[in-house]
């Protein structure tokens, strides 16, 4: 699937790596479906170009080897040609691979958005639209804070970079008038640990930690007395009730932690996690509303 095969809305979303505006459920689901298909095609393209890069490296090495072996012969030119061809292919593959990688979307985030609404779609108010403000560009340089130098630990010097990415804001109304909102903020920390070897070389290892904070809010249509508190895990979750425009608004936060050693964590809370939080907030509604 190419960019031109997408619907105009999906094309805009893929190009800007963002979904914004007010959507009806059916159109929103179709958009996510298109973006997931597009992302799968992009992932396949990235994988293909990576293979191409490896083949180009092998060809360049073979060409170099042949050119050196037969350097005094008339066929040295053939080896040099293979080498140059390999290098040209390698450069092309690297450029295209980087381009495809940049165009890929975060598949776990898209899956969460799709799963969540598929499970609650029957609860949505058909007259109200879903307000969406989703940024799919991920932790870019613009979202990165200044580099922090941490106190050294033994022979290791430590520094870290923190990316704050408030990428998801959703608002929708249920068929009984209650309004729900969901917000996700990701905080990616890259810790660099550098040490000097006995030979004087510097070796650096980077570790990655992603902390996701998912915040679900329920706003009643009129002042209500909440029926009671749902079960909340005190280590990972926090429930609070705040006053907002004369209404008691219940807010449930949940934190998710992912760690990786080699690359940035790609995991994301699932749609079921988000629905679980919304479900527990909805269980606070007074008995007559249920």
């Amino acid at each position, binding site marked *: 699937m190419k960019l031109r095969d997408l619907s105009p809305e999906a094309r805009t979303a893929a190009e800007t790596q963002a979904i914004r505006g007010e959507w009806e459920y059916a159109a929103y689901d179709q958009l996510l479906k298109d973006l997931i298909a597009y992302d799968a095609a992009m992932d396949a393209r990235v994988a293909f170009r990576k293979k191409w890069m490896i083949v180009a490296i092998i060809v360049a090495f073979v060409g170099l080897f042949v050119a050196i072996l037969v350097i005094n012969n008339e066929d040295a030119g053939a080896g040099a040609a293979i080498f140059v061809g390999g290098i040209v292919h390698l450069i092309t593959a690297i450029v295209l691979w980087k381009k495809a990688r940049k165009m890929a979307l975060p598949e776990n985030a898209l899956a969460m958005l799709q799963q969540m609404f598929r499970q609650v779609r029957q609860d949505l108010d058909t007259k109200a639209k879903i307000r969406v403000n989703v940024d799919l560009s991920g932790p870019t340089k613009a979202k990165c804070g200044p580099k922090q130098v941490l106190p050294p630990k033994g022979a290791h010097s430590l520094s870290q970079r923190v990316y704050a990415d408030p990428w998801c804001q959703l608002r929708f109304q*249920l*068929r009984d008038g209650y309004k729900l909102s969901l917000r996700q903020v990701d905080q990616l920390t890259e810790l660099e640990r550098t040490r000097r070897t006995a030979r004087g070389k510097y070796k650096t290892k980077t*570790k990655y930690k992603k902390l996701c904070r998912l915040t679900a809010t329920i706003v009643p249509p009129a002042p209500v007395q909440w029926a009671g508190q*749902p*079960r909340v895990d005190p280590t*990972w979750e926090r429930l609070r009730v705040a006053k907002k425009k004369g209404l008691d608004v219940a807010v449930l936060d949940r934190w998710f932690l992912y760690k990786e050693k080699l690359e940035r964590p790609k995991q994301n809370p699932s749609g*079921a996690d988000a629905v*679980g939080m919304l479900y527990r907030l909805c269980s606070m509604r007074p008995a007559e509303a249920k």
Partner: protein
Amino acid sequence: MNCQWQTGLLVPQPCDSPAMGGCSLCGRSLCMMHTVSGPNGPACPTCANSNQGYEQNEETELESSRSSYYTQYGGTQYFTKRDRQSVEREEVEGYDEFET
């Protein structure tokens, strides 16, 4: 008689469509949309999920995810042992949170 199937998860409401038949396993009245055909006769999405040989459609998939969600919700399964251990480890003094 109207369909007795409850639609929705957060705001469950009965389906208002007129019933066209019933579930041959639990007996509740069902409309065409919530009837799943299979070897033991027409069934509701819940019975279709718990019996083999029934076709899978959007309703049975939704019911399946809903029931798995209900069984996990509020119980010990919702927060795994690994979640707990991860937090307990962080509380140890001098623990390197990047150590995996």
